[in-house]
């Protein structure tokens, strides 16, 4: 009963939807029609970006209302959210994950590290940025990017 009262008192916490982000739908994403399954790949990040991705899917930012959903398998996914610089050990798993996704597929690089190795550039364990390993379609800059920027990138893919 405590939970019931809590639900009633809290009401809706999702923030009102901001206007649609600029920049059209990328050409490969035209087919998705408002439904996008997302697979996260941590290629060696400091986990700052993961916290922000988790926040993008929490009730306040609620990325699910735009038709994006996190899934457990790359076979189910349309979009790979890749975070962090690609470490030597994660280069091959990242290639295989993207290869396992059915076409049409997109790769979104989240965070400065994923775009240009950011904080970790020149590290001995770093293979390179995400675009050195797999083709990147969209990038979300920031260290870490804010949840609403991640949501905006996902909205460009879902087109909602």
């Amino acid at each position, binding site marked *: 009963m405590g*939970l019931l009262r809590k*639900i009633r008192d*809290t*009401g*809706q*916490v*999702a923030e009102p*939807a901001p206007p649609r982000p600029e920049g059209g739908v990328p050409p490969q994403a035209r*087919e*998705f*029609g*408002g*439904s*996008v*399954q997302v697979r996260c790949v941590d290629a060696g990040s400091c986990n700052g970006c993961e916290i922000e991705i988790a926040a993008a899917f929490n*009730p306040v930012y*609620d990325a*699910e*209302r*735009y*038709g994006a*959903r*996190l*899934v*457990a*398998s790359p*076979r*189910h996914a*349309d979009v790979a959210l890749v975070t962090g610089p690609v470490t030597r050990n994660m280069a091959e798993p990242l290639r295989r994950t993207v290869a*396992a*996704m*059915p*076409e*049409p597929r997109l790769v979104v690089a989240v965070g400065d590290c994923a775009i240009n190795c950011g904080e970790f550039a020149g590290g001995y364990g770093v293979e390179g940025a995400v675009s050195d390993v797999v083709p990147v379609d969209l990038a979300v800059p920031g260290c870490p990017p804010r949840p609403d920027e991640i949501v905006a990138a996902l909205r460009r893919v879902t087109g909602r």
Partner: protein
Amino acid sequence: MNTVGYAAIVLQVGAVVAGAPLLTGLMRQTRARLEGRAGAGVLQPWRDVRKLLRKEPITPVGTGPAFRWAPPVLVATSLVLAVLVPLVSTESPVRGRADLIVVVALLALGTVALALAGLDTGTAFGGMGASREMTIAALVEPTILMAVFALSIPAGSTNLPVIVAGAADEPARLTSPAGLLAIAALSVAVLAETGRLPVDNPSTHLELTMVHEAMVLEYAGPDLALVEFGAQLRLTVLLGLLASLFAPWGIATSASSLAAVLLALVLVVLKVAVLGTVLAAAEVFWAKLRLFRVPELLAGSFLLALLAVTASYFMGGEGGQ
């Protein structure tokens, strides 16, 4: 007379096919609202299906016929169930074949096809999911059989339309101890059979906690669309069966008027929508059971079903004099 019967079947199957993704959407939306989210809308599962059908099909290396045939088999068994189960009318042309044992066997066939597909992928999680699914299925199928046997003793037949028509004529059968016990047992069995909380979590991302999801990890594109659609069909048909067995009011019992059939259709859609919303709301308050506790829950529901059979056997004998 037969035209109305066939119309009832066409309407029923059409409503189940169109409504199954909507029911899932409604349940997700209810949950989202209770969590304070805005939610993706009731139409989202239809968008998912449309998108998946446009994607590239993938057959992983090393998989064989079991993997390829499981999605069509799952959908086909669910569609046959949607024809057989009396949701709209008890006086349909297939009434002679709508036997309880056929229904349970069709459910089991779909489950086994998917479990074999999970094994066929040869991945660790596929095999794990298949073994869990079989454990649960072995406990659930007898419970469903037992619970509906308890209802079939007063009706004197294992034919579903006869049971439903009998209950519609004589509501006292449902409020007897046997009826109530059977309701409780069958509800738990349906939760387990459709992979809902507290037996399985349909939205989990953790492979170690998966049951149904673990078996379908390797499906992509149109095959995945079929698997998801099949699961949604099963949920809809089983909730509809619950509604027909325990709240049969409004179901068309004579094949004479189209108006009665249409009214029954509206009523069954309403009943299933209410059941789905209640289930989704209840799930907010439940946590998934530890896997080793699931057999205890299912054994409990089997016990209830057994008591229901015993009760209806002895008390039915008394009341029938």
